[in-house]
C-alpha cells in the first residue's frame, strides 16, 4: 500500500530556496555586523566633516533627477497616449531608447563638455568675479549629472504612465472629454490624478536608480552617499563604509515604503481597463509642438551621446585597443552568461517549483529574495566585499584561489541584486497558467516536477526568455558591483568604459561604449514585448 505523506516531498528544493534566501540576506547581515563594531576616530571625522554633505547631496540629487524625469516622462506619456500626430508611432517606440543608454556611457559622451565650457567660465569670472566663478564651477557638473540621469531614466516614468493613460483611465478620460472639459482640464483634473500611483511608482524607480548610481556622479565629482561609501571602502575604513551604506539603505527604504504605502491606498487607480483611449488628432502647429516635446529629451538622452560616441569611434578606428576591448567583452559575456544561468535556475526553483509543491517555505524564501532588489548597490558591494575578504583571509586554501573567491563574490552580489529581475517576469507568466492544467497533468500520471517540466515551463517559455534577457543586460551593463568586487586586473566592458572616461581617454571609451549600448538595445525588445503581454 503506497501511502505517502505530503510533508516530506520536495525537501531538497525547500533547502535550496532557504539557501537562496540566506544568500540574499548575507550582505545585509555582514554590513550590520561590521557597522556595529566600534570604530576609531575615522567615523567621528566623517560625521563631523562629510556625513551632512553626503546626505544633503543625496537628497538634492534624488529630488532633482526625479523632478526632471517626471517633468519629461509624464507629459510625453500623455501626448503619446492622448493625441494622434505624424510620427507618433515612431516616437512611441523611440522614447524607450534612453533605457538602453547606461548613465555612465552617456556621461562619457558629455564629460568633456566641462572642458569645452572654459570660455564660459572665463566670461563669468570677468563679468561677476571669483565668487560667481567658483559657484558656477560647482553648479555646472550638477546640471550635467542630474540632466544625464534625468534624461536617461525618464522612460521608467514614461512607461508606467503610458499604460495608465492608454488603458486604465481611458473610460474616465473619454467621459471628461464628452462632458466638455478642455484639453488642459482633462489632463489636470482627470488624467493626472488617476495616474498618480503610476507616477509615484515610476518616480520611485528613478529615485532608486539615482541613489544607486556611481558612474555618473563620480565622473562629475558629485559627493552623495554611494561614492562616499566607496571612498571609505577604498581608504580601508570598513566600519565607516558599512555605516554609510546603512544610511543609504535608510533613504532607499523610505522611498520604497512610501511607494508601497501610496499603492496600498490606491483603490481608484485601477480603472476597468475597457478598451483603448481614442486619440485626438492634432493640427499641424500643435503636432510640431508635440513632436518637439518628445524629441528634445530623446535628443539629449540618446541621439546626442550616440552621435558623439560614433564620431569618436570613427576617430580612433585605426588605433583602438581591440585586443583589450575583446578581452573585456568576453569577460562581460562570460560573467553575464554565468549570472543568467544562476539567476534563472534560482528563479525556477523559487517560482515554478514553489507552484508545483505549493510550498509555503519556498514562497517565503521567494519574498525574501525579492527584497534584494531594494538593497543599495553600494551596500551589497561592501557587504559581499567584506565577506570575500573574510573568506580569503580565514581559509588558507581560498587565498590561492583569490580569483575564484572574487568571482564567487561577484556572482553572489549579482544574485542578491538581480534575483527579483528574474523572479518577477517568471511569476507573472506562471500566474497566467491556470492551476487546473497542472492538476490535469497529475491525474494523467505526471509527478509534480514532471507536470512543471511538461506543462508549466513550456507555457512560460517566452516570459522566461524575456526575464533571461533582462538579467543578461542588467549584469552586462552593471558597473558599481563589478567595479568593487572584480578580481584584480579583470575588466568588463563597463569597468573599461568607466576607467577610460575617468582617465580622460574619452575617445577610447567610445568603442566599448557603443558595444555596450547596442547590446542593451537588443535587451529592449523582450522588455517591450513583456510590457505588451502584461498590459493585455
Amino acid at each position, binding site marked *: 500500500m503506497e501511502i505517502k505523506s505530503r510533508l516530506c516531498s520536495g525537501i531538497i528544493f525547500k533547502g535550496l530556496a532557504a539557501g537562496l534566501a540566506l544568500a540574499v540576506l548575507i550582505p545585509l547581515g555582514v554590513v550590520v555586523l561590521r557597522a556595529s563594531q566600534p570604530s576609531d576616530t575615522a567615523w567621528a571625522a566623517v560625521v563631523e566633516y562629510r556625513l551632512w554633505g553626503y546626505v544633503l547631496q543625496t537628497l538634492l540629487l534624488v529630488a532633482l533627477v526625479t523632478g526632471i524625469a517626471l517633468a519629461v516622462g509624464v507629459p510625453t506619456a500623455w501626448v503619446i497616449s492622448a493625441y494622434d500626430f505624424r510620427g507618433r508611432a515612431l516616437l512611441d517606440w523611440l522614447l524607450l531608447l534612453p533605457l538602453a543608454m547606461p548613465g555612465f556611457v552617456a556621461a562619457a559622451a558629455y564629460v568633456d563638455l566641462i572642458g569645452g565650457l572654459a570660455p564660459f567660465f572665463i566670461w563669468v569670472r570677468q563679468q561677476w568675479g571669483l565668487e560667481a566663478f567658483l559657484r558656477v564651477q560647482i553648479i555646472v557638473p550638477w546640471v550635467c549629472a542630474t540632466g544625464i540621469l534625468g534624461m536617461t531614466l525618464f522612460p521608467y516614468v514614461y512607461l508606467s504612465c503610458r499604460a495608465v493613460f492608454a488603458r486604465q483611465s481611458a473610460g474616465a478620460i473619454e467621459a471628461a472629454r464628452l462632458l466638455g472639459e478642455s484639453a488642459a482640464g482633462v489632463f489636470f483634473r482627470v488624467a493626472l490624478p488617476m495616474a498618480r500611483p503610476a507616477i509615484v511608482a515610476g518616480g520611485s524607480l528613478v529615485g532608486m536608480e539615482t541613489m544607486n548610481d556611481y558612474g555618473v556622479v563620480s565622473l562629475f565629482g558629485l559627493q552623495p552617499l554611494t561614492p562616499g561609501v566607496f571612498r571609505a571602502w577604498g581608504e580601508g575604513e570598513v566600519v565607516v563604509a558599512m555605516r554609510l551604506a546603512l544610511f543609504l539603505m535608510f533613504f532607499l527604504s523610505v522611498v520604497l515604503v512610501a511607494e508601497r504605502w501610496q499603492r496600498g491606498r490606491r483603490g481608484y487607480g485601477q480603472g476597468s481597463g475597457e478598451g483603448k483611449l481614442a486619440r485626438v488628432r492634432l493640427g499641424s502647429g500643435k503636432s510640431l509642438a508635440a513632436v518637439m516635446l518628445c524629441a528634445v529629451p530623446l535628443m539629449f538622452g540618446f541621439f546626442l551621446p550616440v552621435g558623439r560616441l560614433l564620431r569618436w569611434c570613427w576617430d580612433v578606428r585605426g588605433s583602438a585597443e581591440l585586443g583589450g576591448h575583446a578581452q573585456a567583452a568576453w569577460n562581460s559575456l562570460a560573467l553575464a552568461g554565468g549570472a543568467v544561468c544562476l539567476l534563472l535556475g534560482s528563479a525556477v526553483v523559487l517560482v515554478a517549483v514553489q507552484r508545483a509543491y505549493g510550498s509555503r517555505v519556498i514562497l517565503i524564501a521567494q519574498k525574501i529574495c525579492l527584497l534584494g532588489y531594494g538593497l543599495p548597490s553600494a551596500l551589497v558591494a561592501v557587504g559581499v566585499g567584506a565577506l570575500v575578504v573574510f573568506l580569503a583571509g580565514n581559509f588558507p586554501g581560498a587565498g590561492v584561489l583569490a580569483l575564484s573567491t572574487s568571482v564567487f563574490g561577484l556572482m553572489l552580489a549579482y544574485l542578491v541584486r538581480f534575483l527579483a529581475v528574474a523572479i518577477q517576469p517568471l511569476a507573472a507568466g506562471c500566474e497566467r497558467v491556470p492551476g487546473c492544467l497542472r492538476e490535469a497533468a*497529475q491525474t494523467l500520471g505526471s509527478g509534480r516536477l514532471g507536470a512543471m517540466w511538461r506543462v508549466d515551463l513550456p507555457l512560460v517559455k517566452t516570459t522566461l526568455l524575456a526575464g533571461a534577457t533582462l538579467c543578461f543586460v542588467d549584469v552586462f551593463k552593471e558597473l558599481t558591483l563589478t567595479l568593487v568586487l572584480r578580481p584584480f586586473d579583470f575588466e568588463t566592458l563597463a569597468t573599461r568604459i568607466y576607467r577610460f572616461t575617468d582617465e580622460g581617454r574619452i575617445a577610447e571609451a567610445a568603442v566599448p561604449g557603443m558595444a555596450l549600448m547596442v547590446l542593451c538595445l537588443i535587451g529592449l525588445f523582450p522588455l517591450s514585448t513583456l510590457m505588451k503581454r502584461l498590459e493585455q
Partner: protein
Amino acid sequence: MSLLEVYGISKTYRRGDAAALAEVSFCLEERHVLALVGASGSGKTTMLRILAGLEMPDAGEVRLDGRVIAGAGSGVAAERRGIGMVFQNHALFPHLTVEKNVLFGVRKMAKPEKGRLLAELLELVGLPGMAQRYPHELSGGERQRVALARALAPGPQLLLLDEPFSSLDMRLKQAVRDETREILRARGTAAVFVTHDTEDSLAVADRIVVMQEGRVQQVGAPQEVYFAPANPYVAKFFGSCNFLPFHLLGSLERARVSCLVGPPGGAGGERGLWIRPEHLWLEKPTAAGGLSGEVERVSFAGSYQRVFLKCAGDLSIEVSHTQGFPIEKGQVWGIIPVRRLPEQSGST
C-alpha cells in the same frame, strides 16, 4: 465489493470554518455512473478533488477496488491513482496538439500501439482527423470530447468529471451529454461526475448523491430521488414542489395520494405532503370543499402552462397545467392530485 467505496469523509479547510465535507459516504459499482449533485458550496467539487487526489480528507477513507487510496491526511498521490479526470473548463494543454494532449498520460507503449490507441479514441469521441489541431482551433464541444479522450487514454479504472457540460450552451449540452453517456458505456468505465444541474444528473447517472453544505442528503437511483425525495431540500432541489399541510387537505386525504408523499416538513415542522406541480390537476371547485385556489399568475412554458394559485392560509401552489382548457387570472379552481393508488381509486 463495490469498485469505489467512500466512508465517512470529512474535510475542513480552515479551523473555525464550517466543514466543507461532513461524514460523506457512498459507493459505486463497476460500469456505473454516479452523479454528485448540489448547489454551489455543497462540497461536491471538494469530494471530487479528494477522489482525484488533489485534496486530502481530514477523516474517513476512500477505497478503489479494495485498495485504500485516501485516508486522514494522507493517500496515494494523484499521479499514481489510475483515476482519470475531465476538468470543468477542459484544461487542455494549449501548447500541445490534440494528439499530444490525448497521449499525454500514456507511457510505456510502443509507437505503433500509441498510434492505434489515438485513432481508436478519436474515433470513439467522433473527432477522427483532428489529431494535429491545437486546442484553440477547436469548438467548445470538440474540446470537451478531446478532454474525455485524454482522460480515457491511460485506461483509468474510474473517471471523474467536474461540471463537464456547464461550459456548453443548452442545445450542444444535450447532445454531448448523451454522447458522453454512450462513450462511458462503450468503454465500460465507471464514472463520478459533479454537477449543479439536476437535469444532467437525472439523464446521465445510475445513482445520484445529493449534497448540501457538506452533507449527503440522499443517495439513490434517479427515479427514487425525484419521486421519493428523502427530505424537503431534495424535493425542492429537483424541481418545483408544493407543500400541502395536512390540516388544509380535507378531501385530498380521501384521494389517497401515495408515492407522491414526501417526508413531513415545511415551516415550523408542520406535517403535510410534498407534491410536484405535474402531479396536480385543476378541476371545477366542488361544493364538498377540498383544496381550491384563486389563479394569481399564468405563464406559458411550451408544452404546458405554469399556473400559480393562492389558496386559503396564504398558501401558494404551482400546477403544471397540461389539460388544454384555458385558465385565466382571477378564476377559482379546485386542485386535486393526478396519481391515485390504482387498487384504491373509486373506493371510499
